[in-house]
């Protein structure tokens, strides 16, 4: 089955906000253990709603693993929710 692992940790994120089709792109993630992840590609960004709250989900990769980030547009917080390794 899928190699997806639930992580659910609050992370620091460096993101760029531009004027192109992908308005917001996460570039770098720092996990609570200090490990840094350099994002090499944004796969897809899609909004989800939980009641009236909008959470933007970013599926990104560092070239080795894929990651799922959630940005809470109301609380302005980033969470790393899942990590997917490629050796499934």
């Amino acid at each position: 089955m899928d190699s997806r692992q639930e992580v659910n940790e609050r992370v620091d994120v460096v993101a760029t906000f531009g004027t192109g089709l992908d308005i917001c792109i996460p570039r770098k993630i720092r996990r609570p253990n200090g490990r840094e992840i350099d994002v090499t590609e944004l796969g897809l960004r899609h909004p989800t709603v939980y009641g009236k709250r909008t959470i933007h989900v970013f599926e990104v990769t560092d070239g080795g693993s894929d990651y799922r980030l959630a940005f809470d547009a109301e609380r302005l917080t980033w969470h790393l929710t899942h990590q997917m390794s490629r050796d499934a």
Partner: protein
Amino acid sequence: MREEYNSARPMVMHIDLNSCFATIEQQARVGLRGRPIGIVNRNTENTAIVTASYEAKARGVKIGMRLKEARKLCPDIIGIESDPPKYRYVYHKLMEIMSDYSAHFRMKSIDEGVIDFALSPEAIAGRDLVEIGYEIKQRLRDEIGCAMRCNIGIAPNRFLAKTAAGLHKPDGLDVITHENLREVLGTLELQDLTGIAARNEHRLNAVGIYTPLEMLDADVSTLRLAFKSVVGEWWHQRLRGWEVDDVDYELKSCGRQYVLESPHLSRRQIVQRLHHLVESVGAKLRSQGKVARGVSIYVRTYDRGGWKGHELAGLPFFSDQAIWTMAERIFMSAPARGIKMISVTCYHLSDGLGNQLSLFGDQLAREQHVTLAVDEINGRYGPRTIHSADTLGTGIYVKAKIPFGSTRYL
């Protein structure tokens, strides 16, 4: 009844996202690109594949196959649990793109839509539709992602446009006109035509029709004899490129089914899951502004048997409580053992949450207000913020899945 082929300029475009959910997952998760994947609704080996990537299809994996069966053909297939919000997002993006070309577009399901250019502004309708088709393909890649692909078919009517969209998968673009109609139909089997499956094929065989070309050449009376209804006349027109499918169907029933996660659940646990389904069906019913008069329960058992029970009420209802009262009563007569799947359907639907309800007393009016208040809270704070205590804990099993067929709930 028109005997000639429709020779008008083809103005209907059918757009079909290729292996939609699998492609979207491959777009989102870069590590899945180029690999065989199967989208499943539950993270188990016994679950059926809803969509397979082209890499999996190339190795014989088919939709509906169980993941463990697929693994025999393709040992490295990766089962990915479906993620409906992601697919809804792509559906809305596709809709946005289509709406740029015509106000007369319609989504046929979560992964396909039709644009009728006949009523578009001249600046758009006057353009080469093949060029617009390639432009839409490019926009999908630019606005959603580089892995997105779609098939496009252009023809004088919806049926032939869909047929054209299926000719060269993946990423094809084909046009059917009155000039190449016979040539195209000559390359197809009867079951390649949308709407012709085994049963209809048998009907056609019974009147001596074995190929789409023979079906095209058949006269109306032969087709009417095959289908034993006006459907034969519709096929006669449809195959000639005349429009018969531009119709909206009214919502006649509203339901949901659930395959139990284990064969070892107690009766009490099954009833809890049934109650969860009832709450989900109630929310769907009210989201369409409908009330119902009937509830039916269908149960499928492990020995491939089926059981059905239903009840019709004198007055229309729409609250979860009203549906549950009937559903619980009906389910008491259901088989005691070996239940594999349960489904709840509300039928005899009519419009409006009904001012007439309040005419029947304070109790119904109160129930109406409470139900609407609960819906409002769930709308504001998230689904199932308020639900019956009985269904506490069932949410991890009975998750919201992809609504196939209808786009009403997207």
